C-alpha cells in the first residue's frame, strides 16, 4: 500500500503551510528589525560640536513588547493558526464532495478512530511547528534587542518582564510549565473543535450534541485568547472532552 500517496494531500498541506509561515515570519522579523533599528537611531542626536551622533540623555527606548506588537507577530500567529485550524474542514469535505470516498473509508474493517486521527494530526503538527517558530522568533527578537540596544537605554525590567508580559507570555508561557500545558491543549483544542463541528454538521440532527460540545469548546478557546478570568485548567479539560466527543462521533454517529 502506497501510504505516502494516500497521505500526500495532508503532507503537502503541512509542508506548504510550514514554508509559507516561515517566509512570512522572516518578513515579520525584518519589519521588527527595521523598527528596532529606527528606534535605536532615534536614541541618538547629532552633537553640533563634534558632528558625531551621541546618545541623547532624555531619549527612551521603546519596550521590546511594543516593537513586537508593531511588527505584526500577533496578527501572524492569529492568521496562521486560523488557516492551520481550518485545514480539517477542507480534508473532511473533500471526502464527501470531490469523490464520495467517505463511503469506502467508513466500510473498512478498522476502527473509525483512525479517520478522526487522520484529520486531527496534520493541523496539530502544523500548529506545533507554528508555535515552535514563534517561540524561536521571540527568543531571537529578545537576543537582538539586548545585543543592539545600548545597555544604558535598555529598560531595567526588560530581561525579567519580557517572557512574563503580553504578547510573549500568552503565546510562550515558558516561565510557567503549567501554563505550557494550557498552550499545548489550546493548540490541540482548536482543530478538534473544527473537526467536531464539521462532523456534527454532516450528521445533521444527529450531530446536535456534538455541535453543542464543539461550540462550547470554541467558546473556551476564544475565552482563552481574550484572557477571560477563569481557571486555565478549563482549556485542557475542554480539549479532552472535545477529542473524546469527536472519537465518539465518528464511531457512533452516522457521518456518511
Amino acid at each position: 500500500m502506497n501510504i505516502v500517496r494516500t497521505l500526500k494531500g495532508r503532507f503537502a498541506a503541512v509542508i506548504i503551510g510550514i514554508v509559507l509561515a516561515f517566509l512570512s515570519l522572516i518578513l515579520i522579523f525584518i519589519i521588527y528589525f527595521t523598527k528596532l533599528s529606527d528606534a535605536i537611531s532615534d536614541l541618538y542626536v547629532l552633537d553640533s560640536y563634534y558632528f558625531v551622533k551621541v546618545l541623547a540623555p532624555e531619549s527612551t527606548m521603546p519596550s521590546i513588547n511594543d516593537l513586537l506588537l508593531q511588527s505584526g507577530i500577533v496578527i501572524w500567529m492569529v492568521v496562521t493558526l486560523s488557516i492551520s485550524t481550518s485545514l480539517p474542514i477542507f480534508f473532511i469535505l473533500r471526502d464527501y464532495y470531490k469523490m464520495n470516498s467517505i463511503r469506502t473509508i467508513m466500510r473498512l474493517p478498522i476502527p473509525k478512530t483512525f479517520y478522526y486521527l487522520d484529520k486531527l494530526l496534520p493541523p496539530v503538527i502544523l500548529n506545533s511547528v507554528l508555535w515552535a517558530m514563534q517561540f524561536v522568533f521571540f527568543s531571537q527578537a529578545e537576543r537582538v534587542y539586548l545585543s543592539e540596544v545600548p545597555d544604558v537605554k535598555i529598560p531595567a525590567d526588560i530581561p525579567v518582564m519580557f517572557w512574563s508580559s503580553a504578547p510573549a507570555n500568552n503565546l510562550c508561557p515558558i516561565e510557567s510549565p503549567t501554563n505550557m500545558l494550557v498552550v499545548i491543549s489550546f493548540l490541540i483544542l482548536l482543530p478538534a473543535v473544527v473537526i467536531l463541528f464539521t462532523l456534527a454538521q454532516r450528521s445533521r440532527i444527529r450531530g446536535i450534541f456534538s455541535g453543542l460540545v464543539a461550540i462550547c469548546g470554541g467558546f473556551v478557546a476564544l475565552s482563552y485568547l481574550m484572557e477571560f478570568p477563569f481557571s486555565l485548567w478549563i482549556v485542557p479539560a475542554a480539549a479532552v472532552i472535545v477529542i473524546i466527543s469527536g472519537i465518539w462521533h465518528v464511531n457512533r454517529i452516522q457521518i456518511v
Partner: protein
Amino acid sequence: MLEMKKVSVSYGISTGLKEVTIAFQPGEIVGIFGENGAGKSTLMNAILGFSPLKEGTITLDGRKIRRKDLARLSYASSEHTLFPMLTARDHKEFFQSMFPRFISKRYDFLMNFFALPQDLVVRSMSSGQQNQLETILALSQGADYILLDEPFAGNDIFNREDFYKVLLGLLEPTECLILSTHLIEEIKHFVGRVVLLKKTKVIADRSCEWLEENGLDLVSWMRDAYHYDEQRVGKTLQAFQEDKE
C-alpha cells in the same frame, strides 16, 4: 444469511425505508428494482451502516453487523466512492491490506477484461472507468455479500451485457450478489430473484423460477406489480395535443 427485519429508515421528516423485511442467502443473485426514490440505495446504505435505522434490525448470520463483519460486505455504486489520488494498482494494494480475502486473480482478470489502466489516478479516469474499477474492487474484495448499486450507470451497453455474462462464470456458489438497477431488460436472464420496491416498501419478492413456473415475463410481471398505467403515454400526448389546439 443477511437478514433485515422490519427495517425503517428516515431522513428527517421523509421516509427512506418502511418496515422492510428481507433475507439474502449465500449463492443468490438478487435484483432490487424500483422507481426513483423507491428505497433501493437506502436499502444498501442501511445494510452497510451508512443510513441509521429508525426501527428494525439487520443481522449477518444471526448477529448484528460488527466492524470486523464489514469485510464480508462489499459495495460499489455509481457515486464514485474511491480515492481520487490513488491509481488502480494502489487501490488493489490498499484493498489487499484491508481485506485479507481479496481475490487477486479475479481482480487481474476483470482489469484485463475492461482494459483499465493500472497506473492512472482515479480522478483522471472517465466516469465509466471509475464505475468499472469500483465494481471490480467490490467483486474482488472476497466478500460473502456483494452489493452493487447502479454499478454501470456510466457504461455502454456492450460493456454491461458482456460483464454480466463474465460475472456468471466468475462468482463462487457461496457468493451472494445484490444488484440494484433500472436496466431490467439487461439483467433479467442474470438474476435469480427479484425484489420490488415501491414508495420505500417491498411490494414483491419472487424467485425467477416462480415467474417461469407461472409463465410470467419479468418485465410484464413488474408492470403488473407496479400497476403500471399503459395508457399513460397516450393520455399525456392526447392532453398535450388538445392543449395545443
